[in-house]
């Protein structure tokens, strides 16, 4: 009886307030789309980091023949210096460094030729123009600082470089996009809360007679307020479902069907990621409705 009654009250409330309910659905839809976009951007950043940080290494560039670095005053790095460096890596950095790969000038030239078979900007280079380096694969890419501290300034080392720095501008851009998206989401969420508040208030006013009778015959607070709570929550959840659907379509057509086909070497967010954040969006939606109800119901349907 209770359930049936509450359901029928909710349905009649939704029907009576159709335009407002549609407005709530749309506003939560848009705001949660921004929330979801921010989450997806962060997921994308995570994927890129996972993917690329595995590939990138710390390069310890060894002194070439002519270098202005003080550690290279003695000229090109000698085999002894390289062995000494490897020994240091093997002892002091045994925990941080997973793998050491020595890239000789010849190796570097081979790589270079592969990349630029016709020479670089018209100049023909030889192996002598290349720079030898030690490529270190770190157990934890975050430990770059320790490795750099230990190796920088040693004889034969010109410079220690973290290749991750290459990606910093990209991640910065993605993070800023996340911030923008989150900022817009915050504004839209505020609008959604205000709109849900207004909707519940309208609904409460239009059913004032009912709630007054309910209070007088001794209906419990929860019973009086539940239909309003559910109306707000239902509209918000509908918005979140739309947002999840919208994001799913966006990822499907923009990322999976287009980006992934055109730029295939990058790991992208997938529809599965959208499904993973969908429950989160729903929780946010219910949270919005709860906040709005909290501020409204005590005022308009008080016992």
């Amino acid at each position, binding site marked *: 009886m209770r359930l049936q009654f509450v359901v029928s009250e909710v349905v009649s409330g939704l029907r009576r307030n159709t335009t407002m309910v549609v407005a709530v659905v749309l506003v939560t839809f848009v705001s949660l789309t921004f929330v979801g976009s921010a989450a997806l951007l962060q997921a994308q950043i995570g994927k890129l980091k996972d993917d690329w940080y595995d590939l990138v290494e710390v390069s310890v560039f060894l002194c070439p023949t002519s270098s202005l670095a003080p550690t290279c005053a003695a000229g090109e790095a000698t085999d002894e210096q390289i062995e000494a460096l490897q020994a240091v890596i093997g002892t002091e950095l045994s925990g941080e460094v997973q793998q050491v790969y020595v890239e000789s000038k010849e190796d570097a030239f081979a790589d270079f030729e592969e990349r630029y078979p016709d020479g670089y900007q018209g100049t023909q280079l030889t192996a002598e123009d290349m720079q030898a380096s030690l490529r270190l694969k770190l157990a934890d890419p975050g430990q770059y600082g320790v490795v750099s501290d230990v190796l920088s300034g040693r004889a034969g080392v010109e410079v220690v470089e973290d290749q991750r720095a290459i990606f910093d501008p990209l991640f910065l851009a993605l993070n800023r996009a996340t911030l923008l998206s989150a900022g817009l989401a915050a504004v839209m969420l505020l609008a959604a809360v205000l709109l849900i508040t207004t909707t519940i208030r309208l609904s409460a006013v239009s059913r004032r007679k009912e709630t007054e009778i309910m209070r007088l*015959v001794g209906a419990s607070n929860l019973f009086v307020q539940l239909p309003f709570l559910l109306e707000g929550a239902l509209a918000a959840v509908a918005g979140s479902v739309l947002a999840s659907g919208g994001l799913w379509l966006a990822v499907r057509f923009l990322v999976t069907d287009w980006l992934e086909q055109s730029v295939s070497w990058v790991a992208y967010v997938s529809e599965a990621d959208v499904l993973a954040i969908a429950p989160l969006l729903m929780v946010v939606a219910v949270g919005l409705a709860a906040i709005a109800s909290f501020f409204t119901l005590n005022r308009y349907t008080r016992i």
Partner: protein
Amino acid sequence: MIRFQNVSKVYARGARPALDDVSVDVERGEFVFLVGASGSGKSTFLSLVLREQRPSRGHVYVAGRDVANLSAWRVPSLRRQLGVVFQDFRLLQNKTVYENVAFALQVIGKPRHVIRDTVPEVLEMVGLNGKEKRMPTELSGGEQQRAAIARAIVNRPQILLADEPTGNLDPTTSLGIMRLLDRINRTGTTVVMATHDDEIVNEMRRRVVELRTGEIVRDEARGVYGERERILPDVGRSPVLDAPGSGTRVVPARLVPQPERRLLPDRQPLADRQPLERRPAGPAFGEA
């Protein structure tokens, strides 16, 4: 059943109290008329019983509970022991008579079979059988008030509060409503009725509590309404009733002198006469 102990109610700081140090006891099964001019505190009295307001000072006990200190979540259980009837009926216009009465049970979570059994029984008792499917707009004023009374008593409350239940009705219809309230009272329900209807009060000869500017000025066991000039000084002798929100209002039916009009053929108080329908007094009407 209802006990006011030195109760005062001040709505706004510095304003004249709506109730001023009122002490009164209403026993179980009593029928009490609350009379007084508009603003004398009748409505405040009823809203304190209902715990729509809390007293500024003093204690209000209703059905054994200290209403002033009742926590909010216990208010519904208090109200389930009270029934309320208003001058303007307050029926839900989009529901049928049956649905209006059933609503009172639905919202307190009564099972469907209880509703199915109780509602027709109550509608029959108030004389609305056959009109279950009518909408309130399809009923006369008296019938609407009967539906409102049915809604108020369907949960078998211990106390029935009536705020000018005959205020919108013509004399004949009012008589019918009073007969109904009397019958409900005879089943053991305590009835407190705020009214301006002097003829009804004079005919019924029940306990009369008169309020004036928030104080009890009279409490008679078998009272009469008293002189209009004194109770309603602004209105005077002319039979004029006030309506909520509109100050005073002329009721055309009362302007016609009706010297022979009586509620009952003799001057005996209603309570001393044959009951309108002989029913043994019991704890609740449905069990008779």
